[in-house]
């Protein structure tokens, strides 16, 4: 079955392909920054869906331009699980949550953006090293920077925000960064691993959602500040 560029007899300039991938990867990074920059949870979920969509786009591009056929399956799964299932689940969950007062973040928006900038610089610093080691992966460099940046930003979101829901978004952002790395620098992991990871993420997101619901039922809030009884 003809699927990828070579099947159609098309040859693309690797530079151009890299630029396309770079565009989507950068968009993923920007999405994570947007999560940090807003406080409204409905927006968070939408941004996440958008981010996942561009992740699917990256996967599709790699599959299409580089003719890595097994990534088509991954693309489809990413699209179904991350663009449709998880956002829908989270959206339905939100309608069930009790409306509440705004929660003060751990780190306020301007400072967290500043931190984010530093993290992206760190990501750049780290990945420069990997590339300098001399690898022939042309598209790797900037995409890798973006993906490491996304992973670190995801963790920053989890640290800086105290709403349990935002923490889930942070976790999912980290996962997206990870997928980006996997697809971009290694042209996808072995299929079985890819499937297993996706399955795990899906289950993790589901369980986190259920637990989030229980938290809101038990504590009348999804502020994790309430969850500080267990210490020492």
């Amino acid at each position, binding site marked *: 079955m003809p699927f990828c560029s070579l099947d159609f007899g098309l040859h693309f300039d690797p530079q151009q392909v890299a630029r396309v991938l770079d565009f989507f990867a950068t968009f993923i990074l920007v999405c994570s920054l947007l999560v940090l920059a807003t406080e409204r949870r409905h927006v968070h979920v939408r941004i996440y869906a958008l981010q996942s969509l561009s992740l699917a786009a990256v996967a599709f591009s790699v599959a299409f331009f580089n003719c890595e056929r097994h990534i088509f399956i991954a693309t489809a799964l990413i699209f179904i699980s991350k663009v449709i299932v998880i956002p829908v689940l989270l959206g339905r969950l939100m309608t069930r949550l009790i409306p509440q007062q705004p929660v003060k973040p751990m780190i306020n928006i301007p400072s967290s953006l500043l931190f984010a900038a530093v993290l992206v610089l760190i990501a750049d610093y780290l990945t420069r090293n990997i590339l300098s080691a001399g690898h022939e992966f042309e598209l790797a460099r900037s995409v890798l920077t973006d993906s490491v940046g996304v992973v670190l930003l995801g963790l920053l979101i*989890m*640290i800086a925000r105290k709403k349990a829901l935002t923490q889930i978004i942070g976790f999912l952002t980290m996962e997206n960064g990870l997928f980006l790395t996997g697809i971009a620098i290694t042209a996808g992991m072995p299929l079985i691993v890819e499937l297993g990871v996706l399955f795990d993420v899906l289950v993790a997101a589901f369980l986190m959602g259920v637990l989030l619901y229980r938290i809101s039922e038990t504590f009348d809030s999804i502020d*994790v500040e309430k969850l500080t009884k267990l210490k020492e």
Partner: protein
Amino acid sequence: MIDAQFFFGLSLFLYLAGAVLGALWCLRPRRSYYVSHLLALAAGISGITSSVPVLLGQSPYHITIPWLTALSNVAPSIKLFENFSLQVDALSAFFVFVISLLVVPVSIYAFGYLREYEHKQSVALLGVLYNLFILSMVLVVTANNALFFLIVWEVMSVVSYFLVTFDHEKTENTQAGFLYIVMTHVGTAFIVLFFLIFYQQAGSFDFEAFRKVAANLPDLAKTLLFVFALIGFGTKAGLVPLHIWLPYAHPAAPSHISALMSGVMIKTAVYGMLRIFFDFLKPDLVWWWGLVLLGLASLSAILGILYAVTEKDLKKLLAYSSVENMGIILIGVSLAMIFSSYQTSTFAILAAVALIAGLYHLLNHAVFKSVLFLGAGAVVSQTHTRNIEALGGLIKKMPWTAACFLIGSIAISALPPFNGFISEWLTFQALLLGFNVPDLIVKIIVPLSAALLALGAALATACFVKAFGVSFLALPRSEHVQTAQEVSSSMKWAMGSLAALCLVLGILPTAVVRLLDGVTGALVGASAAASMGVNPLTLAVPSAKIVTVAPLGLALILLIVIPVALGVAYMAGELRTRRAQTWGCGLPKLSPRMEYTATGFSKPIQLIFKSIYQPRKEIEIETDVSSYVHKRIRYELQIESPFEKYFYQPVSAFVLKISAIVRRIQTGSINTYLAYIFIALVILLLLVR
């Protein structure tokens, strides 16, 4: 020829059988208790049988244990040890002998002592622990492999912890147990360090390998080995300032266990030191090692007895006196170390004398301290109090116990014709031999130490005059004493046989010295018995001027003099009983409250040594109408141990403060937790780049 090895194996088997059968019969506590103690008794007799031939010169024997041998070489290149065995040489045999010698009367005593614990469900447990405790002690003194030694050493500590906390309803007992197990664990940690350094040098945990490597150890390793052994075994021995657990733990245990703890358990530390300093490290001995030990031992001797003098708790008093006596034993050992460090044959004989003095006192202390603890146990079982101030007049109600306690008191006060006198005299003579040492500092320390020893002996007399006088003489001071009766015959016989042993050991020193000479001869490489036993009656010390003592002769003289004196007194009419009222300063009636108290008795000593005791007095006077009319006076005196106040308490406070600071990291906030992961990751990434 007795097959010593067979009897040794038999005694181990019997202890084990006692523990196992005791545990199996736990639903019939009384039967279990009797069975386990009966087996312990048999094991004790078997143990004596097994150790005497070796003491008399039979060659050492080994028993190999097949366990753990899988571990002997973990990787083809790494060897942990070669043989996993028990070895009974003269030194081990001596300790097996001492242990077994005490186990026999103590087990007999335990039959009668059961009544004290009958109301408790866990009597069976007591029998099991008793057997395990003795078994572990026997294994400690015969282990021939460091790993095995550590295992049985800790088993001994843990089992004795269970025994200390056996009466756990009383909070002070659980606290005593806690202090004990922590201190002993610290000590074990140092012993572990000691063995690890040796292992690093020798490449094996076998004692055999330790002996081989000893001659060429680097200086730093030698010094560390000495320090670690000193702290490790010093903790168990109750050496000042590591003694703080001893006065709490020994009284907390059931009395016959206290007798074993004070009588033999703390002596396993002496065994450890002898094994290390004279068996492994003899060619490496440095003169200042012995000097450091001598200083600490003298300090223990004097401080132990000073605290004993002011003590009002009968068993605690005995425990403090154990600190003193361990000091005296270790004075002998340390002198032997000093003499041995010169590595010449003349000094070797002096070392033999000093070591004989130490071992002799070890044996004696084991005997008379158990008489005293068993006596105290008899008193406590009848009166249910350990406070001397509440006793009094027991000599009429418990004459047998009183007689045995009196003999023990005389012996421990180093008065002839009992055994304490001989060994303290020998120790004193050994100290005087220290003048032969060329080093000036030794010459300075030795007379100081001798002075302290003499002072200690005098204070011991005061202490036991107080202990015996206040508890047994005069009138009962409280209702505790009213119901007291003489104890059962098994307890009487146990105490009586030990008291008799005090006398035997006191009047037959030449025989005992000959027995000990085999032990010390192997350790220091010289025999002193020939020069010490002038004739069967007279004991001498080999030195420039011959000093002798003839206890048997003395005893014979006393045997003649006493009846004659009594006869003369009778003739003169002095022995007629005359009953009259004590003069009461004109008061109509004397009450027991007006008797001389233990506190009052020790007050002068307390005043003299005020700077050491640092007493904290509290006088509270309640007045009525006028300030001249006192309604009630409360007087409280507390003596705080300076070691606890200035060392142990600050250290534990410091550790707790640090932990309080560290504990703040667990804030409870998930954001912080995630930040930890983040920071760890970023730092590592930046470092590794």
